[in-house]
């Protein structure tokens, strides 16, 4: 699967999402749980704003000196006997990985969850040459078994499915005979995948953070699958987005703390692993051969632009878990492997405006995403900047969107103006109540407002509104 997950039109994807009650119930309930857990984890830690500032400072420092730290990383990986391949494009990255695997005469590949391997279309490239590629993260495995259903969330990829649907998929594809209880479904997968771990020739992982001064790869999971993927096969290939690194273990620990609390509300996840090179001399397990593939695929052209801060992202999905638009339309509506606010900023930059020009409009600019971001990416500002680029330079947006953008864009600047903005929004859009434009609506706004009410700006903050919402996760 490359970046783009659907060839349907944006409006059709949104319509499909909004009409899918199963999905919307699953998404809203998951969003509430994840959001609640994150708030608890953040509250008990205290000094959260200092933590965020520290996270931001570390990420900005790394981005400003990215060539230095990548060089240091590559040198240290190589000193420990690992091979480093810098890949400018998705094709170069997946091509290199394919060649390594063919050279090893490997047949079976086990993978732990990695968004960047989705981005470079790795599974399809490997399957095209007859390799057996097995996803081992439970969520990714469910999607793979279900005829490669695309992920709808970057941390919990199968979040759009309920347990009955998963049971039915397992019945059809895996001759599963038990109930829809998550314990039973999971135990079944444990049994099936244990055999794959033990018989695989190659293990492929992503990389949460590489550590430049030791040449280590940091992996964060709860299931322990990344550890088996890297302990048992003879060859390990790790794929990382070029910005995903930190100077030393000191910064690694800070970003891991931010990641686990923001992503799943845990102080640490069950398994945080720092792997350095292939196995040491005399070791019995761990890979004999280690390859690190560092992927650009459009990232370098974001550097030095007004969008540079998006590369601070640590892929925690906190922004996705608070987004009112994501809640309504679900992950598949974005048509990108990166959904939600971060996806709406990142997808047009990595995949181009031609395919993803609607995504910056899939936002109310309510700024809940910016508030939630543990490394202080000004997500809603970046969404507004995208709209400006689309309108001013790319000349792609319809007139309706241009007006809507201005109304909401002004509003995002301050709470006072937000109030004003939402007051004038209806009148800004009123000219379109005649003619044929209204049937298409300004972006996804029409479909969306049909199905729900806006959070009232003013007295109640978005966070309070979210907290006070009816429990139980029924789509409002």
């Amino acid at each position: 699967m490359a970046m783009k997950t659907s060839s349907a039109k944006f409006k059709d994807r949104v319509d499909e999402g909004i009409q899918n009650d199963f999905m919307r119930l699953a998404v809203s309930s998951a969003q509430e749980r994840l959001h609640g857990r994150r708030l608890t984890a953040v509250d008990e830690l205290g000094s959260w704003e200092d933590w965020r500032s520290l996270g931001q400072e570390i990420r900005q420092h790394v981005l400003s000196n990215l060539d230095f730290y990548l060089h240091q990383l590559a040198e240290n990986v190589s000193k420990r006997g690992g091979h480093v391949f810098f890949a400018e494009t998705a094709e170069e990255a997946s091509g290199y990985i394919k060649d390594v695997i063919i050279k090893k005469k490997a047949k079976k590949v086990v993978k732990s969850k990695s968004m960047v391997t989705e981005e470079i279309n790795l599974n399809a490239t490997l399957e095209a040459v007859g390799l057996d590629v097995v996803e081992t993260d439970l969520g990714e495995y469910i999607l793979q078994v279900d005829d490669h259903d695309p992920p709808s969330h970057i941390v919990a990829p199968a979040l759009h499915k309920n347990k009955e649907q998963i049971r039915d998929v397992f019945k059809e594809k895996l001759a599963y005979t038990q109930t829809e209880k998550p314990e039973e479904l999971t135990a079944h997968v444990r049994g099936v995948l244990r055999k794959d771990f033990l018989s695989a020739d190659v293990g492929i992982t992503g990389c949460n953070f590489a550590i430049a001064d030791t040449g280590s790869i940091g992996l964060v999971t709860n299931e322990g699958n990344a550890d088996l993927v890297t302990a048992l096969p003879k060859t390990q290939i790790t794929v990382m987005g070029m910005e995903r690194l930190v100077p030393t273990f000191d910064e690694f620990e800070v970003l891991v703390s931010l990641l686990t609390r923001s992503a799943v509300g845990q102080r640490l996840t069950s398994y945080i692993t720092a792997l350095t090179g292939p196995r040491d001399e005399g070791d019995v397990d761990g890979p004999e051969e280690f390859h690190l593939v560092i992927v650009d695929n459009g990232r370098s052209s974001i550097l030095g632009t007004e969008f540079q801060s998006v590369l601070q992202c640590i892929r925690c999905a906190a922004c996705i878990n608070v987004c009112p638009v994501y809640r309504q339309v679900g992950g598949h509506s974005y048509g990108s492997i990166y959904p939600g606010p971060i996806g709406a900023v990142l997808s047009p930059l990595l995949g181009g405006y031609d395919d993803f020009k609607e995504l910056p409009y899939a936002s109310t600019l309510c700024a809940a995403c910016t508030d939630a971001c543990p490394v202080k990416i000004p997500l809603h500002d970046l969404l507004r900047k995208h709209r400006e680029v689309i309108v001013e330079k790319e000349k792609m947006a319809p007139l309706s969107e241009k007006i809507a953008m201005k109304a909401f864009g002004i509003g995002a600047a301050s709470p006072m103006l937000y109030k004003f903005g939402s007051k004038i929004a209806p009148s800004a859009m009123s000219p379109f109540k005649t003619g044929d434009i209204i049937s298409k609506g300004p972006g996804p706004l029409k479909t969306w407002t049909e199905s729900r009410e806006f959070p009232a700006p003013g007295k109640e903050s978005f966070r309070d509104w979210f907290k006070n919402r009816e429990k139980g996760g029924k789509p409002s």
Partner: protein
Amino acid sequence: MNGTIHNEGTFLNKIAQNLGRAPITEGISVPVWKHAPQKEVLKHATQNDLVEELQEQSKRVHTQFHLTDSKQVVQCLKQVIEELGNGPLIIPKDDRFSDYGLADTLKEKGVHIWDHQAGQKNIEKAESANIGITFSEMTLAESATVVLFSSKDHGRSISFLPSCHVSIIPKSTIVPRMTQAAAAIRSKVTRGELVPSCINFITGPSNSADIEMDLVVGVHGPIQAVYIVVEDK
């Protein structure tokens, strides 16, 4: 032997060019960060406070917690092993098992001691073991996390393939949080020591919430986890 590096020059030049400056490959040092909230967590806690924090947090991560001393630890471990359904057991080759007087009990219960000369057989033993038993090198009170270092005598599989993981925690290894563990690893690096090929920070049993956000304990790694804190070590 050093590994290979491909396409580095053009890749890094492009980055420098987009950042609007000449390429930098040396001379950058890590700044002193303006904020350091991580150093404030459990800052004034005594060693006993840390044990309490560890105990409290162990519950939250579905991990059985025992507090014992070097006289009682044999009995405690024996009881834990029985409660988990006995052997087969697997342990790293680690003198502390003898130092703590545990070797005989483990032998009685049927233990495989990791032997790098036996190669692949170790992995088969780990796969068929009911319990893997380790000593924590550093223990993080805040998150109830044990830290393990791999070596030729301590295979990675010991804490992943068996159904249960028991970790023995000398009280002196307990620190407030990951901050102190990272600092200890970093000071090894600055002294010129090599980091082990695998460092594990393990917090309780394996789990997943991928199906409807419902927590299921026991996915690919151990299904049960037990910590035994030894007070006078």
